[in-house]
């Protein structure tokens, strides 16, 4: 015997037959199709619709008795899967959750039961047996959230006093000889062929020791000549050894109504037909005998039951949240993630994607560089991108700045920062993009014209400080040198990673700023080999790590690396003042911004993949042959590109102790005096910062006859 899941049967005295109810089983395709139907066909139409499911009698022990609905459920003419029995039902799809809640379920069930009872009394159900296995499906599809509420009902007519078991259920192989079992299987297969189907839901059986005969249900009168004891079979989706499945219930109501008073004993075959280990068997079918009470047509429609219990075993609806597999935004998100994960699964197993995806990026500048950096960040799955820019989109922008279109230029042009953020959300709704239309105060660009301009500058500084605090990486992507000064100071003070990109005509520099040691450890960590640049007053190079044989520019740890201003011996000033119009525009080869923007992001990603992050020792061109420090390769300090030669070099340089942006004295002044210090820088000429950092002294010492302001355009 197979294991008895329902436990030992109670004492035989007045045993009542109990049925295993259907469990609803829905395929994702069903919900997809319901969504399509609701959107395209039903719209606000709540009228009942005809749908189709099926059940199967070949499940292994332990599986619930299921009624399955798949994507084809809405097509009543769809082919039922081989060896399955179809079941036809009625779909009530409501427009609101309230309607779903308030619809009278009792009435729905009773209506269905009454129709079934009428079909039984009239004998119509004898010919049209699908009327015995009908179901109701009540749904509400919340297509904003992709939540589906549903409740199934499998209506069954009840016998007021139940059905008495005369002979306990036993396995077919215990009742039938092997020969009879084979004959039964053949008879069933023949019946299927006669009916032109691969499954027959109800059938009649006569058997002797050697033969088995089968006939369709509608042939009752001609098949059974005597009715003291009859044997009926039904296609049983249940796998319990002591209970028949639900489809039997309404068949018994039909038999009781049509022949109840004439029948003494009804033998029931629960026909189960499975393929296990590659071979077919029906031996585990179940046979039992019952005494059928009469169900007279005169006494009216019997009581009906059938609403399905929910997952908690309570009488209530179910809900399934399919936003992950149906919401287009969620689908886009998971596809983007999948694409990146494939990179990890296939090529770079140790890639830490979370580190990249969770990085919050602040893009200062939403021009040619900003647009290209943002797109590459999106490609890496970065979800938090913020733009700062004060410009409006002009007619010349869209061709070079891939986040803008012609329409954005009309009517004076939209603000770049907000337009860029909006476009990112259009490209990928999963991104958290914001734009701030604001100016960044600059050295040599006075803000003290009035109290109003001063307080505006102060607000801008505070806003920028806040933004830098809230982000992990700051990208400097502006078109002037001096606008990079303030964020360089703030980010250095807040120990944020800075990636800087700047363009010339056919040259570019992409670099990461040195990441200062945390303030607390600065004092402690003053061993000679790594004393900070502040302790050596005269040499601009500071004290290089004293590794024997290493050059000045190799193996520089991240905290000793320079910033954008470290290589300059003049303070940033107003570089736009004396320039002609063509000099004020970024004049560079169009491909350059894409190259530099992409490199800026890739530099950030490589830096994030390094175990020491921003403190990673700078890789140089010489390291190209060595074992790379990260799974993605080198982590250089700078990438300087020369488009005319299609060549890049990877220089590294030390922080300069007289740097006008990241030297200790500048940071100290900024940290102590805050805006007071900054406003002095904005309002003064070059000399203020140069005096402060000692550059003036340096100039005098070196007695340089003339120092050319090499380039305002950040090229080398």
């Amino acid at each position, binding site marked *: 015997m197979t294991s008895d899941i329902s436990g030992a049967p109670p004492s035989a005295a007045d045993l009542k037959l109990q049925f295993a109810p259907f469990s609803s089983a829905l395929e994702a395709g069903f919900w997809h199709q319901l969504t399509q139907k609701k959107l395209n066909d039903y719209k606000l139409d709540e009228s009942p619709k005809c749908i189709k499911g099926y059940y199967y009698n070949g499940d292994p022990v332990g599986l619930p008795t299921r009624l399955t609905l798949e994507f084809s459920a809405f097509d009543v003419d769809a082919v039922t899967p*081989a060896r399955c029995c179809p079941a036809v039902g009625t779909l009530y799809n409501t427009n609101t959750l309230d309607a779903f809640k308030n619809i009278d379920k009792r009435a729905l069930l009773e209506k269905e039961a009454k129709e079934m009872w009428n079909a039984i009394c009239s004998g119509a159900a004898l010919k049209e047996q699908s009327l015995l296995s009908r179901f109701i499906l009540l749904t509400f599809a919340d297509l904003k959230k992709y939540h589906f509420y549903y409740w199934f009902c499998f209506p069954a007519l009840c016998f007021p006093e139940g059905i008495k078991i005369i002979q306990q259920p036993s396995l077919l192989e215990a009742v039938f000889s092997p020969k009879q079992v084979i004959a039964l299987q053949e008879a069933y297969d023949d019946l299927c062929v006669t009916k032109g189907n691969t499954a027959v839901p109800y059938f009649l059986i006569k058997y002797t020791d050697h033969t088995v005969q089968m006939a369709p249900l509608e042939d009752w009168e001609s098949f059974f000549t005597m009715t003291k004891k009859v044997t009926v079979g039904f296609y049983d989706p249940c796998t319990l050894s002591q209970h028949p499945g639900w489809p039997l219930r309404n068949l018994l109501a039909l038999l009781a109504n049509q022949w109840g008073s004439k029948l003494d004993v009804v033998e029931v075959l629960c026909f189960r037909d499975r393929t296990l280990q590659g071979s077919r068997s029906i031996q585990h079918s179940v046979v039992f005998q019952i005494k059928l009470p009469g169900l007279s047509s005169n006494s009216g429609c019997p009581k009906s*039951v059938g609403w399905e219990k929910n997952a908690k075993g309570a009488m209530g609806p179910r809900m399934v949240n399919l936003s992950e597999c149906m919401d287009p935004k969620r689908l886009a998100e998971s596809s983007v993630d999948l694409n990146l994960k494939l990179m990890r699964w296939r090529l770079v197993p140790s890639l830490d994607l979370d580190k990249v995806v969770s990085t919050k990026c602040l893009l200062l500048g939403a021009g040619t560089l900003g647009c290209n950096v943002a797109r590459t960040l999106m490609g890496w799955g970065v979800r938090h991108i913020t733009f700062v820019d004060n410009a409006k989109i002009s007619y010349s922008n869209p061709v070079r700045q891939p986040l803008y279109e012609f329409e954005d230029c009309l009517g004076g042009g939209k603000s770049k920062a907000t337009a860029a953020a909006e476009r990112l959300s259009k490209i990928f709704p999963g991104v958290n993009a914001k734009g701030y239309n604001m100016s960044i105060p600059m050295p040599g660009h006075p803000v003290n014209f009035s109290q109003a301009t001063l307080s505006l500058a102060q607000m801008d500084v505070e806003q920028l400080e806040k933004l830098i605090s809230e982000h992990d990486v700051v990208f400097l992507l502006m078109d002037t040198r001096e606008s990079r000064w303030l964020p360089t100071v703030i980010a250095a003070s807040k120990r944020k990673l800075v990636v800087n990109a700047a363009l010339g005509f056919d040259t570019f520099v992409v670099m990461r700023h040195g990441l200062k040691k945390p303030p607390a450890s600065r004092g402690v960590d003053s061993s000679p080999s790594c004393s900070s640049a502040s302790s050596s007053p005269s040499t601009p190079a500071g004290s290089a790590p004293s590794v024997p044989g290493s050059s000045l520019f190799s193996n520089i740890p991240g905290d000793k690396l320079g910033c954008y201003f470290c290589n300059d011996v003049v303070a940033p000033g107003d570089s736009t003042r004396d320039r002609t119009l063509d000099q004020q525009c970024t004049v560079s080869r169009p491909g350059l911004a894409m190259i530099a923007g992409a490199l800026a992001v890739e530099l950030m990603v490589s830096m994030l993949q390094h175990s020491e992050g921003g403190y990673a020792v700078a890789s140089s061109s010489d390291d190209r042959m060595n074992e790379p420090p990260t799974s993605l390769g080198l982590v250089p300090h700078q990438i300087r590109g020369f488009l005319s030669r299609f060549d890049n070099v990877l220089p590294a340089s030390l922080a300069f102790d007289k740097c006008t942006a990241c030297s200790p004295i500048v940071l100290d002044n900024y940290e102590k005096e805050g805006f007071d210090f900054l406003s002095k820088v904005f309002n003064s000429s070059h000399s203020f910062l140069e005096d402060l950092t000692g550059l003036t002294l340096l100039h005098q010492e070196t007695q340089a006859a003339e120092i050319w302001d090499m380039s305002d355009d950040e090229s080398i």
Partner: protein
Amino acid sequence: MSCGVVDEEEFCRCCRLLLQHSNGVGDGWSWEAVRGSDEGYLKKTLLRSVPAERSVPQKHKEPGSDSEKFDYCHLQTEEQEKQGVDASSDSLRPDAEEEDDGVCGAPAGSSSVLQFEYHILYSCSYRTPVLYFRASTLEGRSLTLEDVWRTVHPNYRLGLQSRPLDAITQQEHPFLGQAFFYLHPCRTEEFMKPLLQMARDQNRQVNYVLSWLSVVGPMVGLEVSLECLKQQQLHPTTPQQLRVPLRGSIQQPKTL
């Protein structure tokens, strides 16, 4: 078949044999032709009862954790409370007045049932079959990769995860364009080689697809019966043995 791979023609022939046998015993395999091409794949759906501890998490764990989003039970109650769907309200209790004594008690729910859909495709790059699959709950909600890993038997899980590429990964289905899980074929040639060699030494014919499936299938719950493997007619003897077209006749199995 000098090495561990199989060409596309042989793949299709093996599939035909497998289908024929499956149609005979009702094993559930079908051939899904891709519209507008000769290509297609073998498909089978299967219900698996998975022990509760290896199934989709049902209880709410740490808030904000990954499991939160799988937790449809929690969502359900939360949603119902929020929306005012109250299981105890009368309108939702159609059977409340009369308890049905004709229903047998449901077996204790120490396991839950998942629907698995398996596809066997041919990979031109690896020249081997590839097993794609997806899984969902009976409510129709798809399982995530994490959920799927949980359903893998612990004995297999270790073996699969210790490979250089986590062997179960997600990938777009080449024909359907939807996200499927699949067993990476990079090792297929490696384990098929000795198997084919042995068969050759013993002068035995082997159905490549069937033998391959008997190795990879069980890892993700797809058992291949011993009975099936023993079936002689499943193993090709001569190339011209069968000329059943893949499309058409086999698509809609009618025979019993």
